[in-house]
Protein backbone atom coordinates (compact mmCIF):
# COMPACT_ATOMS: atom_id res chain seq x y z
CA UNK A 1 0.00 0.00 0.00
CA UNK A 2 1.56 3.36 -0.98
CA UNK A 3 1.87 6.03 1.56
CA UNK A 4 0.24 9.32 0.92
CA UNK A 5 2.87 12.01 0.68
CA UNK A 6 2.55 14.53 3.50
CA UNK A 7 0.99 17.77 2.43
CA UNK A 8 4.01 19.79 3.39
CA UNK A 9 6.13 17.87 0.88
CA UNK A 10 3.91 18.71 -2.01
CA UNK A 11 4.91 21.28 -4.58
CA UNK A 12 3.09 24.56 -5.02
CA UNK A 13 1.37 23.23 -8.13
CA UNK A 14 0.15 20.16 -6.25
CA UNK A 15 -1.13 22.31 -3.42
CA UNK A 16 -2.93 24.57 -5.89
CA UNK A 17 -4.59 21.56 -7.53
CA UNK A 18 -5.68 20.17 -4.20
CA UNK A 19 -6.94 23.53 -3.00
CA UNK A 20 -8.81 24.00 -6.26
CA UNK A 21 -10.77 20.87 -5.41
CA UNK A 22 -11.68 22.24 -2.02
CA UNK A 23 -8.80 21.00 0.13
CA UNK A 24 -8.65 23.77 2.72
CA UNK A 25 -5.59 22.30 4.38
CA UNK A 26 -3.72 22.54 1.11
CA UNK A 27 -4.87 26.13 0.66
CA UNK A 28 -3.75 27.02 4.18
CA UNK A 29 -0.35 25.50 3.66
CA UNK A 30 0.11 27.29 0.34
CA UNK A 31 -0.73 30.64 1.89
CA UNK A 32 1.57 29.93 4.81
CA UNK A 33 4.44 29.26 2.43
CA UNK A 34 4.01 32.55 0.57
CA UNK A 35 2.80 34.72 3.43
CA UNK A 36 6.14 36.44 4.17
CA UNK A 37 6.69 37.35 0.52
CA UNK A 38 3.14 38.73 0.26
CA UNK A 39 3.59 40.68 3.48
CA UNK A 40 6.90 42.28 2.51
CA UNK A 41 5.61 43.33 -0.91
CA UNK A 42 2.55 44.85 0.72
CA UNK A 43 4.67 46.58 3.36
CA UNK A 44 6.92 48.23 0.81
CA UNK A 45 4.17 49.09 -1.66
CA UNK A 46 1.91 50.72 0.90
CA UNK A 47 2.49 53.91 2.85
CA UNK A 48 1.88 52.53 6.32
CA UNK A 49 1.87 49.26 8.26
CA UNK A 50 -1.89 49.52 8.65
CA UNK A 51 -2.46 49.85 4.93
CA UNK A 52 0.03 47.06 4.37
CA UNK A 53 -1.95 44.74 6.64
CA UNK A 54 -5.10 45.49 4.65
CA UNK A 55 -3.29 44.90 1.38
CA UNK A 56 -1.88 41.62 2.68
CA UNK A 57 -5.35 40.40 3.65
CA UNK A 58 -6.78 41.38 0.26
CA UNK A 59 -3.93 39.65 -1.51
CA UNK A 60 -4.45 36.46 0.50
CA UNK A 61 -8.16 36.49 -0.26
CA UNK A 62 -7.51 37.07 -3.95
CA UNK A 63 -5.07 34.16 -4.05
CA UNK A 64 -7.55 31.90 -2.27
CA UNK A 65 -10.36 32.83 -4.61
CA UNK A 66 -8.21 32.34 -7.67
CA UNK A 67 -6.88 28.91 -6.80
CA UNK A 68 -9.66 27.02 -8.54
CA UNK A 69 -9.18 28.97 -11.75
CA UNK A 70 -5.38 28.89 -11.81
CA UNK A 71 -4.47 27.49 -15.21
CA UNK A 72 -0.79 26.76 -14.62
CA UNK A 73 0.43 28.87 -17.50
CA UNK A 74 2.83 30.61 -15.14
CA UNK A 75 4.64 29.48 -12.07
CA UNK A 76 2.57 29.60 -8.91
CA UNK A 77 4.97 32.09 -7.32
CA UNK A 78 4.77 34.38 -10.34
CA UNK A 79 0.98 34.27 -10.18
CA UNK A 80 0.97 34.99 -6.43
CA UNK A 81 3.32 37.94 -6.91
CA UNK A 82 1.04 39.31 -9.60
CA UNK A 83 -2.05 38.92 -7.44
CA UNK A 84 -0.27 40.63 -4.55
CA UNK A 85 0.90 43.57 -6.64
CA UNK A 86 -2.62 44.03 -8.02
CA UNK A 87 -4.10 43.90 -4.51
CA UNK A 88 -1.64 46.55 -3.38
CA UNK A 89 -2.45 48.76 -6.36
CA UNK A 90 -6.16 48.45 -5.52
CA UNK A 91 -5.49 49.40 -1.91
CA UNK A 92 -3.37 52.34 -3.02
CA UNK A 93 -6.24 53.59 -5.13
CA UNK A 94 -8.58 53.29 -2.17
CA UNK A 95 -6.20 54.97 0.24
CA UNK A 96 -5.58 57.80 -2.23
CA UNK A 97 -9.14 58.88 -1.50
CA UNK A 98 -8.37 59.10 2.19
CA UNK A 99 -6.43 62.02 3.70
CA UNK A 100 -2.82 61.09 4.35
CA UNK A 101 -0.61 62.54 7.08
CA UNK A 102 2.20 64.73 5.80
CA UNK A 103 4.58 64.12 8.66
CA UNK A 104 6.33 60.74 8.30
CA UNK A 105 6.39 60.49 12.08
CA UNK A 106 2.58 60.70 12.07
CA UNK A 107 2.54 58.00 9.45
CA UNK A 108 4.64 55.71 11.58
CA UNK A 109 2.54 56.37 14.66
CA UNK A 110 -0.65 55.41 12.83
CA UNK A 111 0.09 51.75 13.05
CA UNK A 112 3.72 51.06 13.46
CA UNK A 113 5.08 48.59 15.88
CA UNK A 114 8.62 49.91 15.86
CA UNK A 115 10.97 49.31 18.68
CA UNK A 116 11.10 52.58 20.57
CA UNK A 117 14.46 52.03 22.18
CA UNK A 118 16.73 53.09 19.30
CA UNK A 119 15.90 56.49 17.89
CA UNK A 120 18.25 55.92 14.95
CA UNK A 121 16.43 52.78 13.81
CA UNK A 122 13.06 54.45 14.02
CA UNK A 123 14.17 57.45 12.02
CA UNK A 124 15.78 55.27 9.32
CA UNK A 125 12.62 53.26 9.01
CA UNK A 126 10.59 56.41 8.86
CA UNK A 127 12.87 57.73 6.17
CA UNK A 128 12.63 54.58 4.10
CA UNK A 129 8.85 54.41 4.52
CA UNK A 130 8.40 58.01 3.57
CA UNK A 131 10.80 57.93 0.66
CA UNK A 132 9.22 54.81 -0.79
CA UNK A 133 5.76 56.25 -0.48
CA UNK A 134 6.90 59.21 -2.56
CA UNK A 135 8.29 57.16 -5.42
CA UNK A 136 5.92 56.79 -8.35
CA UNK A 137 3.97 53.59 -7.95
CA UNK A 138 5.09 51.92 -11.17
CA UNK A 139 8.78 52.51 -10.29
CA UNK A 140 8.20 51.54 -6.69
CA UNK A 141 6.67 48.22 -7.78
CA UNK A 142 9.68 47.38 -9.92
CA UNK A 143 12.13 48.27 -7.13
CA UNK A 144 10.20 46.18 -4.62
CA UNK A 145 10.14 43.12 -6.86
CA UNK A 146 13.82 43.49 -7.75
CA UNK A 147 15.52 44.75 -4.61
CA UNK A 148 13.17 43.48 -1.93
CA UNK A 149 12.05 40.17 -3.45
CA UNK A 150 15.23 39.49 -5.44
CA UNK A 151 13.38 38.49 -8.60
CA UNK A 152 15.08 38.52 -11.98
CA UNK A 153 14.03 40.74 -14.83
CA UNK A 154 12.19 38.03 -16.75
CA UNK A 155 10.09 37.11 -13.78
CA UNK A 156 9.31 40.76 -13.04
CA UNK A 157 8.32 41.24 -16.68
CA UNK A 158 5.97 38.24 -16.42
CA UNK A 159 4.46 39.51 -13.18
CA UNK A 160 3.89 43.03 -14.44
CA UNK A 161 3.14 41.93 -18.00
CA UNK A 162 5.57 44.46 -19.44
CA UNK A 163 8.63 44.10 -21.69
CA UNK A 164 12.04 43.40 -20.17
CA UNK A 165 13.38 46.77 -21.26
CA UNK A 166 10.58 48.52 -19.45
CA UNK A 167 11.41 46.53 -16.33
CA UNK A 168 15.02 47.76 -16.39
CA UNK A 169 13.92 51.31 -17.04
CA UNK A 170 11.46 51.34 -14.16
CA UNK A 171 13.97 49.79 -11.77
CA UNK A 172 16.53 52.39 -12.73
CA UNK A 173 14.21 55.32 -12.33
CA UNK A 174 12.78 53.93 -9.10
CA UNK A 175 16.21 53.55 -7.54
CA UNK A 176 17.18 57.05 -8.63
CA UNK A 177 14.03 58.52 -7.15
CA UNK A 178 14.49 56.62 -3.92
CA UNK A 179 18.07 57.83 -3.56
CA UNK A 180 17.06 61.39 -4.31
CA UNK A 181 14.31 61.34 -1.74
CA UNK A 182 16.47 59.73 0.89
CA UNK A 183 19.19 62.23 0.16
CA UNK A 184 16.74 65.11 0.57
CA UNK A 185 15.84 63.80 3.98
CA UNK A 186 19.40 63.98 5.33
CA UNK A 187 19.45 66.03 8.46
CA UNK A 188 15.75 65.50 9.03
CA UNK A 189 14.81 62.97 11.66
CA UNK A 190 18.41 61.96 12.23
CA UNK A 191 18.80 59.72 9.19
CA UNK A 192 22.10 57.92 9.45
CA UNK A 193 24.11 55.88 7.05
CA UNK A 194 22.16 56.84 3.94
CA UNK A 195 24.20 58.13 1.08
CA UNK A 196 22.76 60.28 -1.74
Amino acid at each position, binding site marked *: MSRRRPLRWKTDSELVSAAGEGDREAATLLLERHYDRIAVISRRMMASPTDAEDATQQALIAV*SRGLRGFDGRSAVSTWIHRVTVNACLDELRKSARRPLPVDPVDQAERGASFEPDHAGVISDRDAIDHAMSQVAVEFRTAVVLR*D*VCGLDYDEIAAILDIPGGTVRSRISRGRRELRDRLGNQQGVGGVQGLEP
Partner: protein
Amino acid sequence: MSDSPEPDLDDFIVAMLRDVDETPAAVRTRQIATAVRHLRVESSTPSRVRRLGVAATILLVVGGIVVLATNSAERRSDETISVAGLADGAGSGDAAEVRDDGSKTRDEGSDAFSADVSTEATTSTLATAPAAGAQSSPEQAMNFVELGEFADIEAARHAAVDAHSLESSKPEAADRSTLPSVGVVACPLPPDVGSPLWWGTGTIGGHPYVMAVVRNSGSGTRALVTPIGACAWS
Protein backbone atom coordinates in the same frame (compact mmCIF):
# COMPACT_ATOMS: atom_id res chain seq x y z
CA MET B 1 16.36 51.99 -24.10
CA SER B 2 19.81 52.21 -22.51
CA ASP B 3 21.72 48.96 -22.05
CA SER B 4 23.86 50.27 -19.25
CA PRO B 5 23.06 48.56 -16.01
CA GLU B 6 21.12 50.63 -13.60
CA PRO B 7 23.12 51.48 -10.47
CA ASP B 8 22.34 49.19 -7.62
CA LEU B 9 20.99 50.54 -4.45
CA ASP B 10 23.35 50.78 -1.56
CA ASP B 11 23.45 47.67 0.52
CA PHE B 12 22.22 49.65 3.49
CA ILE B 13 19.19 50.86 1.61
CA VAL B 14 18.42 47.37 0.39
CA ALA B 15 18.79 46.06 3.91
CA MET B 16 16.39 48.69 5.17
CA LEU B 17 13.92 47.91 2.41
CA ARG B 18 13.93 44.26 3.41
CA ASP B 19 13.76 44.99 7.09
CA VAL B 20 10.07 44.83 7.86
CA ASP B 21 8.48 43.87 11.10
CA GLU B 22 7.37 40.29 11.29
CA THR B 23 3.62 39.96 11.41
CA PRO B 24 2.41 38.72 14.80
CA ALA B 25 1.45 35.05 14.68
CA ALA B 26 -2.14 35.73 15.71
CA VAL B 27 -2.59 38.24 12.89
CA ARG B 28 -0.98 35.90 10.40
CA THR B 29 -3.20 32.99 11.40
CA ARG B 30 -6.34 35.12 11.30
CA GLN B 31 -5.53 36.51 7.88
CA ILE B 32 -4.86 33.10 6.39
CA ALA B 33 -7.99 31.62 7.93
CA THR B 34 -10.05 34.49 6.56
CA ALA B 35 -8.59 33.98 3.12
CA VAL B 36 -9.21 30.22 3.14
CA ARG B 37 -12.87 30.86 3.89
CA HIS B 38 -13.03 32.47 0.45
CA LEU B 39 -11.77 29.33 -1.20
CA ARG B 40 -14.03 28.57 -4.15
CA VAL B 41 -15.02 24.93 -4.29
CA GLU B 42 -15.94 23.11 -7.46
CA SER B 43 -19.68 22.64 -7.46
CA SER B 44 -21.07 19.15 -8.00
CA THR B 45 -23.63 20.68 -10.32
CA PRO B 46 -22.36 20.92 -13.87
CA SER B 47 -21.78 24.50 -14.90
CA ARG B 48 -24.21 24.19 -17.79
CA VAL B 49 -26.99 23.16 -15.44
CA ARG B 50 -26.10 26.00 -13.10
CA ARG B 51 -26.25 28.49 -15.96
CA LEU B 52 -29.64 27.18 -16.99
CA GLY B 53 -30.84 27.48 -13.44
CA VAL B 54 -29.66 31.08 -13.23
CA ALA B 55 -31.33 31.91 -16.54
CA ALA B 56 -34.59 30.32 -15.43
CA THR B 57 -34.50 32.27 -12.17
CA ILE B 58 -33.95 35.53 -14.00
CA LEU B 59 -36.83 34.79 -16.36
CA LEU B 60 -39.14 34.03 -13.45
CA VAL B 61 -38.23 37.23 -11.68
CA VAL B 62 -38.62 39.36 -14.79
CA GLY B 63 -41.90 37.67 -15.62
CA GLY B 64 -43.19 38.27 -12.14
CA ILE B 65 -42.30 41.93 -12.35
CA VAL B 66 -44.07 42.25 -15.70
CA VAL B 67 -47.20 40.56 -14.34
CA LEU B 68 -47.25 42.82 -11.29
CA ALA B 69 -46.79 45.90 -13.43
CA THR B 70 -49.55 44.82 -15.79
CA ASN B 71 -51.95 44.10 -12.94
CA SER B 72 -51.15 47.42 -11.38
CA ALA B 73 -51.81 49.21 -14.68
CA GLU B 74 -55.10 47.41 -15.10
CA ARG B 75 -56.22 48.38 -11.64
CA ARG B 76 -55.35 51.96 -12.33
CA SER B 77 -57.19 52.01 -15.66
CA ASP B 78 -59.91 54.26 -14.44
CA GLU B 79 -61.54 51.96 -11.95
CA THR B 80 -63.43 49.81 -14.40
CA ILE B 81 -66.48 48.17 -13.07
CA SER B 82 -67.45 44.67 -13.81
CA VAL B 83 -71.17 44.46 -13.57
CA ALA B 84 -73.71 41.87 -14.36
CA GLY B 85 -75.68 42.63 -17.43
CA LEU B 86 -79.29 41.91 -17.46
CA ALA B 87 -80.05 38.81 -19.39
CA ASP B 88 -83.00 40.17 -21.18
CA GLY B 89 -82.92 43.84 -20.40
CA ALA B 90 -86.50 43.74 -19.20
CA GLY B 91 -87.32 45.19 -15.90
CA SER B 92 -89.77 47.22 -14.08
CA GLY B 93 -89.63 50.84 -13.77
CA ASP B 94 -91.15 53.70 -15.45
CA ALA B 95 -90.45 54.02 -19.07
CA ALA B 96 -88.46 57.03 -19.97
CA GLU B 97 -87.61 58.59 -23.23
CA VAL B 98 -84.05 59.48 -23.89
CA ARG B 99 -83.26 62.15 -26.38
CA ASP B 100 -80.33 61.99 -28.73
CA ASP B 101 -78.76 65.01 -27.13
CA GLY B 102 -78.55 63.07 -23.91
CA SER B 103 -81.36 64.76 -22.16
CA LYS B 104 -84.02 62.64 -20.81
CA THR B 105 -87.47 63.07 -19.59
CA ARG B 106 -89.56 60.84 -17.50
CA ASP B 107 -92.91 59.46 -18.41
CA GLU B 108 -95.97 60.63 -16.74
CA GLY B 109 -96.07 59.68 -13.13
CA SER B 110 -92.37 59.69 -12.72
CA ASP B 111 -90.29 62.33 -11.20
CA ALA B 112 -88.81 64.52 -13.79
CA PHE B 113 -85.12 64.76 -13.90
CA SER B 114 -82.43 65.77 -16.24
CA ALA B 115 -78.87 64.73 -16.48
CA ASP B 116 -75.71 66.08 -17.96
CA VAL B 117 -73.47 63.62 -19.61
CA SER B 118 -70.27 64.56 -17.94
CA THR B 119 -67.67 62.74 -16.02
CA GLU B 120 -66.88 65.85 -14.07
CA ALA B 121 -70.38 66.47 -12.83
CA THR B 122 -70.40 67.11 -9.13
CA THR B 123 -73.47 69.23 -8.95
CA SER B 124 -76.33 68.49 -6.76
CA THR B 125 -78.83 68.72 -9.58
CA LEU B 126 -80.28 65.78 -11.24
CA ALA B 127 -78.76 64.96 -14.57
CA THR B 128 -80.15 63.55 -17.74
CA ALA B 129 -79.14 60.02 -18.55
CA PRO B 130 -77.45 59.50 -21.85
CA ALA B 131 -79.34 57.90 -24.70
CA ALA B 132 -79.63 54.33 -23.63
CA GLY B 133 -79.39 51.97 -26.50
CA ALA B 134 -79.40 54.90 -28.88
CA GLN B 135 -75.92 54.00 -30.04
CA SER B 136 -74.45 57.25 -28.89
CA SER B 137 -70.68 57.53 -28.92
CA PRO B 138 -69.05 55.01 -26.62
CA GLU B 139 -67.42 57.72 -24.58
CA GLN B 140 -70.68 59.50 -24.03
CA ALA B 141 -72.61 56.37 -23.45
CA MET B 142 -70.21 55.15 -20.88
CA ASN B 143 -70.26 58.36 -18.91
CA PHE B 144 -71.92 58.04 -15.64
CA VAL B 145 -74.71 60.42 -14.83
CA GLU B 146 -74.43 62.24 -11.60
CA LEU B 147 -77.53 62.16 -9.51
CA GLY B 148 -76.25 64.26 -6.67
CA GLU B 149 -74.61 64.12 -3.32
CA PHE B 150 -76.18 62.40 -0.37
CA ALA B 151 -75.58 62.06 3.30
CA ASP B 152 -74.84 58.37 3.21
CA ILE B 153 -74.82 55.35 1.00
CA GLU B 154 -78.35 54.36 1.78
CA ALA B 155 -79.72 57.77 0.90
CA ALA B 156 -77.79 57.74 -2.36
CA ARG B 157 -78.98 54.27 -3.19
CA HIS B 158 -82.57 55.06 -2.51
CA ALA B 159 -82.37 58.23 -4.52
CA ALA B 160 -80.95 56.36 -7.46
CA VAL B 161 -83.50 53.59 -7.24
CA ASP B 162 -86.39 55.94 -6.67
CA ALA B 163 -85.36 58.43 -9.28
CA HIS B 164 -85.05 55.83 -11.94
CA SER B 165 -87.33 53.19 -10.63
CA LEU B 166 -84.47 50.79 -10.97
CA GLU B 167 -84.38 47.50 -9.31
CA SER B 168 -82.00 47.27 -6.50
CA SER B 169 -80.01 44.16 -6.98
CA LYS B 170 -77.50 44.64 -4.25
CA PRO B 171 -78.64 46.69 -1.29
CA GLU B 172 -75.40 46.43 0.59
CA ALA B 173 -72.10 47.96 -0.19
CA ALA B 174 -70.43 46.10 -2.97
CA ASP B 175 -67.37 45.77 -5.00
CA ARG B 176 -66.77 43.92 -8.19
CA SER B 177 -66.73 40.58 -6.51
CA THR B 178 -70.30 40.96 -5.19
CA LEU B 179 -71.93 42.04 -8.43
CA PRO B 180 -74.53 39.81 -10.03
CA SER B 181 -72.71 37.46 -12.27
CA VAL B 182 -74.92 37.48 -15.34
CA GLY B 183 -72.24 38.22 -17.82
CA VAL B 184 -69.51 40.68 -17.20
CA VAL B 185 -69.68 44.24 -18.33
CA ALA B 186 -66.93 46.75 -17.91
CA CYS B 187 -68.06 50.35 -17.52
CA PRO B 188 -65.36 52.75 -16.50
CA LEU B 189 -66.17 55.19 -13.76
CA PRO B 190 -65.22 58.82 -14.11
CA PRO B 191 -61.60 59.38 -13.22
CA ASP B 192 -62.40 61.49 -10.20
CA VAL B 193 -64.48 58.76 -8.66
CA GLY B 194 -63.27 56.38 -6.03
CA SER B 195 -64.14 52.74 -5.67
CA PRO B 196 -67.87 52.01 -5.82
CA LEU B 197 -69.63 51.59 -2.52
CA TRP B 198 -72.70 50.03 -4.06
CA TRP B 199 -74.18 49.40 -7.42
CA GLY B 200 -77.29 47.96 -8.87
CA THR B 201 -78.84 47.23 -12.19
CA GLY B 202 -82.17 48.08 -13.67
CA THR B 203 -83.83 49.48 -16.71
CA ILE B 204 -84.92 52.83 -17.88
CA GLY B 205 -87.37 52.75 -20.71
CA GLY B 206 -86.58 49.09 -21.18
CA HIS B 207 -82.90 49.75 -21.55
CA PRO B 208 -80.60 48.26 -18.96
CA TYR B 209 -78.70 50.58 -16.69
CA VAL B 210 -76.19 50.13 -14.02
CA MET B 211 -75.70 52.58 -11.30
CA ALA B 212 -73.09 53.11 -8.68
CA VAL B 213 -72.83 54.88 -5.41
CA VAL B 214 -69.39 56.19 -4.73
CA ARG B 215 -67.65 58.08 -1.98
CA ASN B 216 -66.86 61.68 -2.52
CA SER B 217 -63.30 62.73 -2.04
CA GLY B 218 -64.46 65.02 0.71
CA SER B 219 -67.51 63.66 2.42
CA GLY B 220 -70.85 62.30 1.51
CA THR B 221 -71.65 60.00 -1.34
CA ARG B 222 -72.50 60.35 -4.99
CA ALA B 223 -74.87 58.33 -7.06
CA LEU B 224 -74.09 57.66 -10.69
CA VAL B 225 -75.81 55.74 -13.45
CA THR B 226 -74.78 54.56 -16.86
CA PRO B 227 -76.50 52.55 -19.52
CA ILE B 228 -75.37 48.98 -19.61
CA GLY B 229 -76.19 48.70 -23.25
CA ALA B 230 -73.44 51.07 -24.13
CA CYS B 231 -70.88 49.11 -22.24
CA ALA B 232 -68.84 46.27 -23.61
CA TRP B 233 -70.28 42.84 -23.16
CA SER B 234 -68.22 39.81 -22.72
